[in-house]
C-alpha cells in the first residue's frame, strides 16, 4: 500500500501560498483598534495575527506528530545501543566473528557471524526463488490474464499478503517439511557432488525449508507491487512496440520491463527487507544450528530474528543485552536495505514528474 509512485506527490493539494496568507487573514472580527501598524491597501481592517491561536496550536500538534516518526527511529537506535553496550562489554570474544551463542554463561561468549550469515543466506535464496515467479505472475495479471480473471486473482493475492507469518510458519513446519525433506534426500542422492546439496543428513529443518517458506511469504508483496508498476506502462509505448510488429513477449521486453525496472527493483528490495526481518516463520522452520555453511539441505541454519525468538525465553540480563545487540545489527541491515529501496523509488518519482 502506498508504494505506487503517485504523480501528485510534489504538487501539494491546497497550495502553500494561499493557505498561509488566508490563515492569517481569517479572523473572528477583532476590532480595528487592536493593530498598531498603519493599514496597507484593502486589508487594513484585518486583525493582527494572535500570538497563540488554534491555528498555531494545531500546526504545532501536527508538526510534532510528524516529527514523532523521526523521534521513534532515533529512539530505537538509542535504546537498543544503550541496552546492547553492557552485554557487548561483558562479551569475552569478538562479537562480529564468533559463531556460537552462549551469552548466559558466567563467561559470556556470543557472536553474530553465524546468524547474520544465516539471515542473509536464507533471504537471498528466498528472493532468488520468489522474484522470477513473482514477476511472471505480475506479468500474467497485468498483460496476459483476461480482466475477469485478473481482478479476483489480484484481490486474493492482496489478501494473501495479509496472512500472518505465524500461519506460514505453522504450515511450513507441519505440512511443507515432509515434501522438502523428500526432495532434500533425492537431491542428496543424485547431486551430493555439489557442495550445496552434500552432507550425510539428517535432512529436513534446513535452510532450504526456511527459504522456501520465506519465498512463499514474500511472493504476494513482490507480485502486488510489480503488478502496479507494470500496469502503469504508458499505453502509447506498448502500442508503438506492437505497431512495429513486435510479438507480445517482445512488446513486454522492450516496453513494459524497461519502464517497470526501477519499480521492480524497489519491490524486490522491499521484499528483501521483509525477508530479512521475518521472525516467526523462520523460528519455526529452521534447524537452529550455529554454523556458517552453504549446505542448504542438512538440518541447520539460523537467523538473527529467529534466534531472538527462540532464545529469548531463557535469557538472563546479559543474554537479553546480547539479543538486543543482534537486533541492532538487524535494524542496521534492514535500515540500509529499506533506505536504498526508497531512494530508488524517489529517484524514479522525480524522473517521472520531470518527464510528464
Amino acid at each position: 500500500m502506498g508504494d505506487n509512485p503517485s504523480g501528485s506527490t510534489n504538487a501539494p493539494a491546497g497550495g502553500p501560498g494561499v493557505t498561509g496568507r488566508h490563515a492569517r487573514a481569517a479572523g473572528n472580527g477583532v476590532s480595528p483598534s487592536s493593530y498598531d501598524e498603519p493599514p496597507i491597501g484593502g486589508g487594513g481592517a484585518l486583525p493582527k495575527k494572535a500570538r497563540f491561536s488554534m491555528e498555531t496550536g494545531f500546526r504545532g500538534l501536527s508538526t510534532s506528530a510528524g516529527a514523532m516518526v523521526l523521534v521513534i527511529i532515533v529512539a530505537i537506535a538509542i535504546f537498543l545501543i544503550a541496552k546492547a553496550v553492557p552485554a557487548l562489554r561483558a562479551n569475552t570474544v569478538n562479537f562480529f566473528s564468533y559463531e556460537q551463542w552462549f551469552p548466559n554463561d558466567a563467561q559470556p561468549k556470543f557472536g553474530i557471524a553465524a546468524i547474520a550469515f544465516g539471515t542473509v543466506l536464507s533471504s537471498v535464496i528466498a528472493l532468488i526463488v520468489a522474484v522470477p515467479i513473482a514477476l511472471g505472475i505480475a506479468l500474467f495479471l497485468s498483460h496476459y490474464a483476461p480482466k475477469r480473471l485478473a481482478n479476483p486473482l489480484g484481490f486474493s493475492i492482496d489478501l494473501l499478503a495479509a496472512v500472518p507469518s505465524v500461519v506460514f510458519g505453522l504450515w511450513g513446519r507441519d505440512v511443507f517439511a515432509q515434501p522438502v525433506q523428500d526432495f532434500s534426500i533425492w537431491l542428496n542422492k543424485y547431486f551430493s557432488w555439489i557442495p550445496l546439496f552434500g552432507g550425510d543428513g539428517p535432512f529436513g529443518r534446513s535452510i532450504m525449508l526456511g527459504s522456501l517458506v520465506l519465498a512463499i511469504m514474500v511472493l504476494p508483496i513482490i507480485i502486488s507491487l510489480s503488478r502496479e508498476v507494470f500496469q502503469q506502462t504508458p499505453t502509447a509505448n506498448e502500442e508503438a512496440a506492437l505497431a512495429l510488429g513486435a510479438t507480445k513477449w517482445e512488446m513486454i521486453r522492450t516496453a513494459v520491463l524497461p519502464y517497470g525496472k526501477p519499480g521492480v527493483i524497489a519491490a524486490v528490495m522491499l521484499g528483501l527487507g521483509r525477508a530479512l526481518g521475518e521472525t516467526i516463520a523462520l523460528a519455526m522452520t529452521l534447524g537452529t544450528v550455529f554454523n556458517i555453511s552453504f549446505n542448504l539441505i542438512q538440518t541447520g541454519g539460523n537467523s538473527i530474528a529467529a534466534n531472538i525468538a527462540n532464545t529469548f525465553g531463557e535469557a538472563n540480563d546479559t543474554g537479553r543485552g546480547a539479543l538486543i545487540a543482534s537486533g541492532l545489527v538487524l535494524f542496521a541491515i534492514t535500515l540500509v536495505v529499506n533506505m536504498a529501496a526508497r531512494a530508488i523509488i524517489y529517484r524514479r518519482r522525480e524522473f517521472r514528474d520531470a518527464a510528464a
Partner: protein
Amino acid sequence: MSTMTQSDLPGVGMTPGNIRSKKLPLAMNLAVAVVAFGLAAAIVYGFGIGNWVLVVVLGWVLYLVGLLIAASRVEGRRAARNRAWRSLIYSACILAILPLASVVWTLISKGVQRLDGDFFNSSMNNIGARDPGGGAYHAIIGTIQQVGIATIIAVPLGVLGAIYLVEYGRGRFANTVRFFVDVMTGIPSIVAGLFILSFWVLIVSPWFNNGEPRFSGFAAALALSVLMLPTIVRSTEEMLRLVPGPLREGAYALGVPQWKTILKIVVPTALPGIVTGVMLAIARAAGETAPVLLVAGGAAAINFDPFNGNQSSLALFVYQQAGDASKYAPARAWTAALTLVAIVLILTIAAKMLARRNSLTR
C-alpha cells in the same frame, strides 16, 4: 488492453497473432505434450530415479523445449520465443498457486478440528499435556486489548502526522519525515519488540513496579503501535492528497481558518479512505507474533488487565501451541491460526470493500 483486436477494426486485423500465416496446430501441441510426458516417465521409471513428481517436472521441461523447437520450425524463431515465454509465465502462476492453495486447504481442514464452543470459552489455565480441552479465550482477549490500545495510540498520531505532511509540511524537514515514514514501514517487527523491551519493559516499567521489570499487554500495544504508525501515515497521506484543492480554497474563501478547514472539510472528505488504511494496519498488527512474545510474555490464564502482568495473543498462542509437545497442541494451534486468519481477512476484505465505495479515486 492496448492491442487492437480484430473486432475493433473489421478487415484490418493484422495483429502479431495472425499476421503470420502458419500457426502451430493444436494437435501438434498435444502431440508434443504426450511425447514429452511419455519420455519423462520412461526416463524416470526406467532409471528408477524418482517418483511421479519428477515425471511431472521433467515432462514439463521437455514439453517446453519440444514446443520451442516445434514452434520455431513452423512459426519462426520470434513467434516460438513468444510462445515459450507465455508458457513460462503461465507455469509460474500454477507453481505459485500450489503452495498457497495448500496453505488455505490445510488451514481449513486442520482448523475445523477444534472449532467448538469450548475453544472460544476456555483458557489454557490448568490444561496439562494430557488434557484434550483448552482454548484461546485468553489469547483473543489479549489480541483485542493490545490491538485496541495500539489503535488508540497510533491513529491520532498517524492521522496528525499525515495532516502535517500534506497540509503544513514544506521543505527539507517534511521531506525527511516523509522519507523516514517510508523507511519505518520496513522496520522488522522483532526490532520494534526489542525497542519496547529495552525502553518500556526494562527502563520505564520498573518505576511502577518496585524496580522489577514487568511484562504487560500495554507494552505489546506500544510495540504494535510503532508498527502501525508508518502504515497509517502513508495511507492517510495518500487519501488527504486526493481531496480536491478547490474544496479547501472554497473554505478559505469563506474565511474559515486552516485548522478548521482541515478538521471539518478535508478529513471528513477523506474519511472512508483513512478508515480503510487504519483497518489494514489493524489487520497487520493483529497477526504480529514477535513483539508480543518479547514484551507481553505470553500467559496461560485469562488476564483482563493490559497494564499488569503477562498477556497472550492469538498469534503468540499459535506459536506457543506449535512448540508444545502435547498431542492435542497442533489441533489447538491450527484452530487458533484459522481464527486469526479469519479475523485478519474479515478486516482486510471489509477495508477493501470500503475502499471500493470511496468516492475519492486516483
